[in-house]
């Protein structure tokens, strides 16, 4: 399954009513002879209705990279082609790899 991924402007804040997040780093994580595109970010639920939403570091695993920045979205941001990763064993392996690269508290598979 192929999906398009519109890259983020690194460091730009995406605001919701409950908080915000930014993507500040992209990395290609080698796994099984392929490369998984991972976007690292920081988010905080600082105006959410409950709890101590002081923030967390997270990693979005976009998918296996199929084609890097081959297009452009209407807002000018580059688009890459990716294959989302759904296999639970692969997800587990990639979580471990990410843990060794960067301290974080969440890994999400887009």
């Amino acid at each position, binding site marked *: 399954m192929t999906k398009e991924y519109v890259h983020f402007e690194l460091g730009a804040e995406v605001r919701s009513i409950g908080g915000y997040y930014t993507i500040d780093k992209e990395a290609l994580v080698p796994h099984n002879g392929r490369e998984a595109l991972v976007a690292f970010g920081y988010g905080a*639920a600082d105006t*959410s209705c*409950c*709890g*101590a*939403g*002081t923030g*967390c570091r997270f990693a979005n695993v976009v998918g296996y990279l199929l084609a890097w920045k081959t297009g452009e979205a209407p807002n000018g941001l580059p688009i890459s082609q990716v294959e989302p990763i759904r296999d639970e064993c692969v997800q587990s392996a990639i979580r471990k790899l990410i843990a060794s690269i960067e301290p974080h*508290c*969440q890994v999400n598979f887009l």
Partner: protein
Amino acid sequence: MIGITHYGGYIPKLRLDRMQICQAMGWFAPAIMAVAQGERSVCNWDEDALSMAVEASRDCLKGANKANVDALYLCSTTLPYADRQNAGIVKTALNMGDTVLTADFTSALKAGTTALTAAFDALAGGQKKNILVTASDKRETKGAYFYESWFGDGAASLMLGSENVIAEYKGSYSVSHDFPDHFRGTGFKYDYMWEERWVRDEGYSKIVPQAVGGLLNKLGMKMADVTKFAFPCFFKAEHLKIARTLGAAPDQVVDNMHEVCGETGAAHPFVMFISALEQAKPHDKILMAGFGQGCDALLFEVTDNITRLSPRKGVKGCLADRRQFPSYEKYCKFRDLIKVEMGIRAESGARTAMTTLWRKRKMITGLVGARCKKCGTPQWPPPQICVNPSCGSVRQFEDYEFADRKGRVLTWTADMLAVSWEPPTVYGIVQFDEGGRMLLDFTDCEQQDVKVGQPVRLSFRQRYFDKDRGYQGYFWKAIPVREEAGKEASA
């Protein structure tokens, strides 16, 4: 004959690999390398000596009729209350009757064996028929020294009686000495230890043989007659030397369990004894001794009934159920060894209404709900009016215990927002197989362990600590369990 009829164990799931301590603090205290073998057991952030005591007692009560218990002794040097009977809280958690005699045995590491001796005296005197003796400790230590590595957290429980005895009580011998190998004054958090070599040479080496020798003499026995000799001593070489002095060969000496959990304070004589009992054959003789300002020595002979004892988790099951701390820093946070900012949201805390706690003690501490006498529906919390829409009966309920019921996850979540010692906070609704449901915090699990439909078991845990008033509150939580045919393990 009188003796042990059931046993139970509780070693908390979390383990700290001692090499993690060395890696973190070896630069400061290189000596701790010497004791860095294996792992020690560590309470979860919501456990203490009292909660562990409840769990060990529950394990012990499997296959027993708790209505027959007429006394409950709780033995520990680390109980939450200096004044408010801790054994009474355990008794209420087990939902036992009003006429159970409760007593706390405290202030010495031999509290467990001393309580056992007193309990057997009561049984022998005929005033009591069945006594539950539970020992538990969560000893606090500062970082980067030997004791942090020598100690582990744990609890164990022995039921004493005269029916279906699995280990017959043969006799005891006790000596008491105000030997201050260590002490902890009221209001102080950490023990004050004297020189290890002195403790070894003047303490263990002289006092243990005095009691054990005294017992063997009293019973007209020799150490060669004993199958297994269980006594805690974290000085590895001394442990074997004392045994040798008493005539025991290395294979007669029950391992101190340093590598698998560490020394569990007042619970350790029981923990070591149970580890031997779990492998014992009928007619084995096991000698148990506890050291701490004196020494008690007790001898037991295993009977045929050991082969008929109903299954329980015991020490063996708990040791197999383990999860490692990811880092020493996390252990430090759990042990309050480092100051972290919990945030403004953690400031809240209500005063506990003692009147409400007393009125609702069965519900809160005992997890007792209600079953409608008219329609039979179990319900939680225990109401005034039946929740069944086609029943509606008023005040027609009988007590219904939920703690040991089987249930499954109806739904759940892992909440990153709730203030927590270990985010994300996991909680959900448990639907009990026989009816009734409960909204509960989950514990001893990670997000990956939980799914809708997963079976759970319940566990007695700390709920909150009111630090302004020194009040420790307890309630129950759910633990997801892996579905294994015929065997229960934590997920």
